[in-house]
């Protein structure tokens, strides 16, 4: 069986064709321009993940919010729960780009980090 999908690992968006056998085991991946496409096809067929990006509230900073993201892609099923945890945060300025805001969110092994700096007011 062939499954068609679009690689979302980068904005080029290669069209991939994944060949699967009856048990769902991947036999081949075609259409990718780089090896990340291969990895993408494998995780997308087994355990799909996405990088989460959102914002968190800041106390005493020059801006009311700081953008945050998952340091690595999270399992798709954990995205909404993670946003709820992030929305409950109130982080004191100053914040530096890359600061860990939630370590190992929902036991996923992935940290939530600040994706910009926010100096004190």
């Amino acid at each position, binding site marked *: 069986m062939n499954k068609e*999908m*679009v*690689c*979302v*690992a*980068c*904005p*080029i*968006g290669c*069209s991939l064709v994944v060949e699967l056998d009856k048990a769902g085991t991947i036999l081949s991946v075609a*259409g990718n321009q780089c090896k990340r496409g291969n990895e993408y096809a494998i995780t997308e067929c087994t355990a799909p993940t*996405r*990088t989460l*990006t*959102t*914002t968190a*509230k800041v106390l005493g900073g020059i*801006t*009311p*919010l700081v*953008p945050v*993201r998952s340091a690595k892609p999270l399992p*798709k099923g954990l*995205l*909404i729960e993670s*946003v709820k945890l992030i929305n409950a945060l109130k982080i004191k300025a100053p914040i530096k*780009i890359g600061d860990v805001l939630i370590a190992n969110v929902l036991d996923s092994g992935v940290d939530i980090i600040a*994706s*910009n*700096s926010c100096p004190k007011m």
Partner: protein
Amino acid sequence: MLNYDLVVVGGGPAGMAAALKAKECGVNSIIILERAETLGGILEQCIHTGFGLHYFNEELSGPEYAYRFIDLVEQNEIEVKTDTMVLGISADNVVTATNNQEGIISIAAKAIVLAMGCRERPRGSLNIAGTRAAGIMTAGTAQKYVNIDGYLPGKKVVILGSGDIGLIMARRMTLEGAEVKMVLELMPYSGGLTRNIVQCLEDYNIPLKLSCTVIDIHGRERLEGVTIAKVDRNRRPIKGTEEYVACDTLLLSVGLIPENELSAAMGIEIDPVTGGPIVGENRETTHKGVFACGNVLHVHDLVDYVTIESQIAGEGAANYILALEEEAIYVTTKGIDGVRYVVPQRININSDKDVKLYFRVGQTYKNAKIFLENNEEIILSRRRPKLAPGEMEDITIKSEVLRELPVNSELIVRVEV
């Protein structure tokens, strides 16, 4: 009057990359003028990831990508004036700008890089009937409300236009708890990147309705709903397909327009298709010593390409300032048979460099072939598994080949299936 070798107008990724490259090429007197409070341009509000995969080999968010360049601008001690708006540029390259501290300032420049970016097409250019209710805004405005100011502009959302900003905002508002009912696209294909359709719409079960548009707007003070309809091949609404959709917010993501008021006012020739200046391979406009790069030149979907293009402009400006420019003998470029435009629009055949031609197609193609031709002779051809209007393509012409082209001839880019 202040004096600088190079004045860069706009401190987004384009302006910063051009300034850094000019510095690296040996220009020391450089200033960047930026009307916002900080450098970074539109990237500051693009908190999603997808930036830098080609340039840095890493997937960064917008602010992270900008931060790398802001850091380099500081390290290289390039002068910056923020909160400073450029009002005009004279024919002899004097830049007039204004800010709160200094009032009106004049800066004489040997060379200028235009890097003002683009803005979103507003409602006025759309011609939708109906009331002027609150709750109708561009997707980029909503992006600023949600990501910078921290407030959700609505709860029930319809998005008109499937440009990338609209798609990104569909996901963003869903994550913040709004109900995004649908994305409508007038054309039979999406204007955004496929990856955004997958991870912003399909992941959240948001329907994308192609060949559909908004024909009426309801609500007095606040938007209450819209009437949508299918359109025929000539983009006219089809009778009997009207449907009412209740919503309190309508986001418009119907395209970007390069910000070229300054360029046009100084007499620079504008390409009617790109909306940006006509440039040579070094990104010099038709006005000597004035260069353009980034979204002000043509709308880019990937910031990585903005950076690369801006480095070309920065080097071009440096060569001009240091009097290293080759004597110019031009050939022009042109897109036909499905190729909407080609940048650069002209190439100096003496430039001694391989030149990448960037272009966009007007519809989607599968298994297409791209041809580069001169005087009805094929110079080269490349196969592409797919081409889409939302994705910029490129093809490279070697300097050896360029040098042999007849003066004033035309380089044609076309697609064939």
